[in-house]
């Protein structure tokens, strides 16, 4: 039986699913037939996104007015719903999912507008936008991880399609690493179901059994999600070269899939926290963030810079989730996605030309919002995270270091762009989508405060906090001394990061280039993913060697040569042995028979001669006479 409750606005979970499915279908159509359609199918993608936009807006408006409770729609997928270890799929119509779906659609539509205005349509990019949007929407509206994984897969497919035309090494490596991560999460989810841990996040979240197997399975699930976010060591793809645009290189392959992957982590956060695995993974996320940022700092390619920055910020977001809860994590995620999306849009449309105001302004805006300047949702996320971490000095220190490095990296990207000489064309349809996406990352919109936590709580409140509404819980209210400590840490790290970026990149000479030239070995190791790629290559070569040896000794030598030879030899020898024995027996029997017949035959032959007959007669006669005489004598 299917649970359905119809909302006041008559937008039901089924309609949300249909809207998402429509976006998926047009994305798929665009991927296969986009090139044959007029204008590479941009109109088709636009039409395909509108139903989702409509249902999401209507449903969202209802939630804003406080009309609805979360509405689940659950179906059994593999086995019936009531079966204990069934695999369920479903849609959860709640504020968090609707907000993310709406944001994804808005991002997709802004991208379309910007791309159409540029005038060089590319069908695979349009398809990637639709697939990315549908993947994110599905992942965040899913009621169980299974549908969320399909959402991640759809977004990944979009990213793969956007990379089409790149060197086969790059895009297949991308696909390989994403599939690897997806399989790991599936293994974890299957293990959880096997142990009886429910995965329906509208009702199962307090009921996981306390078993080591649950921890193991949960560990695989979280590890898989973190690898979806391209954490170390699966960030090697980022270092591959590409001449694609920023959106084809960063927005579709990285932003959308990571955004979709985050959904499962956020939804399962309460039960994952009970298993105790979030803390070690939080530390792993911070280490990965630092490794990503260091690898990014030596890059001279702007897109690689931003790509590594995104990985490191995702690391901070995951750490925020693990140590401080979903509120700071989502804030950082939204801030980073919007900043990168805005960057991709204006960077891709930039061309060599005369300097203009918008180039510098938009670049600065990206740097500001991505660094967590006051007024950004990123500021809110980072301040909340720092505020909740103050009791752990190690965590606070490492967190501050991460903030320093990530700020340095994004500002390095900003200065690299400004020094490239390329200018954003000052046309409304090229500038406004990027600008609006960046502005959408404002704290007043998401956190209900003007500065996003740069001022003490309550002093700059502006009303509704969408994040709190979506995820539950109130914004952090810090004590004065804690607020002071967090403020010093935050702004100190940001300021140091900006200064460092200016000192290394903002001036005439790019010092990071000089650093790379001075330490070529270190640079090479970084470009090989901290030599992890080399290690994996050696490992796989080892496996390859073992496989060849097994194949040679078991298949070729043993079964195809030695066994047939042995069998043939055994059969031949046994056969000849038996044959010889058989021949011997036959010969023996033959000679015995021969002797048995020859002796009486010779005897009878002799008996047939005349003299012998008389001798025999006399002998027999004498014998009889003697016998008769003796018999008479004795009687």
């Amino acid at each position: 039986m299917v649970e359905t409750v119809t909302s006041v606005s008559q937008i039901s979970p089924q309609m949300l699913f249909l809207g998402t499915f429509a976006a998926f279908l047009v994305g798929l159509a665009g991927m296969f037939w986009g090139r044959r359609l007029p204008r590479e199918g941009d109109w088709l993608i636009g039409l395909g996104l509108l139903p989702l936009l409509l249902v999401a807006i209507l449903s969202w408006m209802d939630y804003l007015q406080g009309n609805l409770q979360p509405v689940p729609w659950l179906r059994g997928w593999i086995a019936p719903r009531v079966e204990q270890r069934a695999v369920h799929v479903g849609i959860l119509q709640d504020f968090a999912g609707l907000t993310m779906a709406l944001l994804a659609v808005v991002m997709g539509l802004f991208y379309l507008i910007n791309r159409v205005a540029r005038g060089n349509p590319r069908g695979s990019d349009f398809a990637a936008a639709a697939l990315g949007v549908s993947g994110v929407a599905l992942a965040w509206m899913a009621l169980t991880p299974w549908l969320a994984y399909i959402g991640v897969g759809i977004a990944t497919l979009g990213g793969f399609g956007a990379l089409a035309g790149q060197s086969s090494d790059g895009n297949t490596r991308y696909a390989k690493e994403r599939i690897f991560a997806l399989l790991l999460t599936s293994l974890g989810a299957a293990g959880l179901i096997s142990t009886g841990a429910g995965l329906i996040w509208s009702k199962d979240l307090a009921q996981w059994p306390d078993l080591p197997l649950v921890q193991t399975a949960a560990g695989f699930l979280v590890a898989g999600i973190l690898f979806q976010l391209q954490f170390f060591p699966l960030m090697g793809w980022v270092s591959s070269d590409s001449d694609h645009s920023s959106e084809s290189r960063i927005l579709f392959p990285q932003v959308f899939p990571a955004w979709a992957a985050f959904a499962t982590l956020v939804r399962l956060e309460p039960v994952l926290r009970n298993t105790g695995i979030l803390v070690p993974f939080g530390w792993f996320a911070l280490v990965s963030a630092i490794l990503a940022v260091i690898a990014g700092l030596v890059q001279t390619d702007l897109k690689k810079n931003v790509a590594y920055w995104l990985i490191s910020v995702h690391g901070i977001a995951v750490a925020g989730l693990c140590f401080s809860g979903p509120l700071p994590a989502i804030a950082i995620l939204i801030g980073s996605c919007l900043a990168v999306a805005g960057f991709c849009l204006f960077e891709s449309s930039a061309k060599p030309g005369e300097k203009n105001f918008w180039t510098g302004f938009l670049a600065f805006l990206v740097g500001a919002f991505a660094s967590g300047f006051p007024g950004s949702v990123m500021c809110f996320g980072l301040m909340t995270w720092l505020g909740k971490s103050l009791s752990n000095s190690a965590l606070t220190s490492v967190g501050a270091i991460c903030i320093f490095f990530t700020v340095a990296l994004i500002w390095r990207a900003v200065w690299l762009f400004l020094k490239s000489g390329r200018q954003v064309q000052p046309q409304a349809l090229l500038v406004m989508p990027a600008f609006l996406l960046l502005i959408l990352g404002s704290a007043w919109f998401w956190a209900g405060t003007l500065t996003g936590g740069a001022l003490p709580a309550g002093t700059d409140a502006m009303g509704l906090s969408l994040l709190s509404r979506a995820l539950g819980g109130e914004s952090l209210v810090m004590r004065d001394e804690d607020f002071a400590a967090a403020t010093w840490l935050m702004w100190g790290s940001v300021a140091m990061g900006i200064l460092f970026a200016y000192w290394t990149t903002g001036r005439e000479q790019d010092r990071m280039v000089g650093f790379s030239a001075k330490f070529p070995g270190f640079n090479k190791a970084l470009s090989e993913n901290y030599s992890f790629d080399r290690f994996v290559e050696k490992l796989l070569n080892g496996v390859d060697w073992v496989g060849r040896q097994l194949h040679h000794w078991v298949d070729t030598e043993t079964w195809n040569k030695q066994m047939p030879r042995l069998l043939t030899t055994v059969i031949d020898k046994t056969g000849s042995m038996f044959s010889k024995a058989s021949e011997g027996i036959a010969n023996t029997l033959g000679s015995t028979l021969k002797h048995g017949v020859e002796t009486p035959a010779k005897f009878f032959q002799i008996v047939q001669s005349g003299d012998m007959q008389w001798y025999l007669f006399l002998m027999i006669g004498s014998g009889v006479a003697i016998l008769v005489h003796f018999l008479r004598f004795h009687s």
Partner: protein
Amino acid sequence: MAGHLISLMIALPFFGAILQALLPPVGGKNSSGSVTRWAALLSSLAASLCGIVLVGSMRQQVPDFQVSETFAWIGSYAISYDVAIDGLNALLVLLISIVFPLLIAAESNRKSGLRGIQALLLVLQASLMGAVCAQDLFLIFFFWTLSSLPIFFMIGIWGGEGREKAAIQTMITSAIGNAFLFAALILIYYSIDPHTFSLRELAGGKLAGKTFQILESEFSVSNVAFAFFGIGLAFRIPIWPIHGWFTQVAREAPPSAFVALGAVTVPVGMYIFVRTTYTLFPETVAQMAHTVAMIGAVNLVMGGICAVAQRGLTMLLAFVCLGEVGALLIGIGSLSSAGVVGSIFQALVLGLGVAGFGLFAGIISDRTGKTVFKDEDGKVAIGGIASQAPMIAVVAGVMIASLLGIPGFGGFVGRSLLMIGSFSVHPVVVLFGGLAFLLATYYLFGMYRTVFFGKAVSEKSSDFMDLTAWEKAYLVPLVVSLVLLGLYPKFLIELVRPTALTLLSTIK
């Protein structure tokens, strides 16, 4: 009527094979092959239609046999012609019904020996269908043994350079396996009074406690017969390390023969193992479950490691198949409904995936003259096909996605069920199996990248023709099946589950 449909499903391919032998060559140079071609295809399709109708008309949530036909065959020895379909063999019936018409269609462009190979495929279809539906041990043995003959001839006549050796090796291995099976049959037959071969009469632990003596030593009938069944089937299904014949077949056999073996015979063998052991030896199965799972894990890991080293499409497929057999064994050894259902479902998906992979390997072999995609020194031998033939790339991509277990395809459903059923019972085995699944992303993607992306390395690669309409006709059903199974598997799972639960209740 439905009972007769089973017999029709088994008999029609036999008649089709006989027809191939009897049909005279039709006059006219353009039509000489088309009559035999269509006759074979229609025979196979008619039988398949019977299978699909039978499975389609089955009711869900019913554990018993839903269609059956029985009559005494050799009555004095209690050998009956007893065929039936329930949830456990319905998916195998579906697999055979889908794959064999495609194989016959794939062979239809063969220039020489068309009638022969079509007849052999039809005999194989009939014998495997009989083995799947039979509920009498002697009948199962009869059909199962019969199925080894067509493979022998197909390899021996139409195979590669080493075809004679491969054919003989296959035959000898089959004979050894069949000998063990026969020994088990006889042991079971004489252990029960009144003697019978009927699975239905032997079910419910009738062999429990039965023993026999050899040289004053007592042996359990269940344990020995279980071992004989396992060993006997291991010689027909690739179980590491006695799988050498299978890789030899992969190297030498024509694509349709290898697909028939890997995609159908192997799943049928697994089904026979489940059907017979679960029905006849529930206590032994309970004791040996962990061993079965361990053998499965070894198969999975060894198959994965050996697959990494492969440079040819068919050899790679052979080791993928070997690994997947291991996955099925892990599910069978889990003794849980999810594991057993997952094994049966995965057998169907494996068959479809291997069939698709094997057929596209055959197409590549026809077009380029080779199946080796990388030379021994690592140089690419086939490459850049996707730009010339995007449809083939998509078809191959779907097959690989299913074999990898990506969500949205049939392989994901089967694999998830296997892991759900097995993780809590054999967590270490599943973790090793998981490593093998993860390794598969490396070698399958590596092959895909080499063959489809990059630059064309030869004239034949750069001039590669995309799928013809005929090729699309037999490959697209496989793609559609795998996608449908991935999106809506519940209908088929609900056929299998009640029967699996009933079988498991006798074990527990």
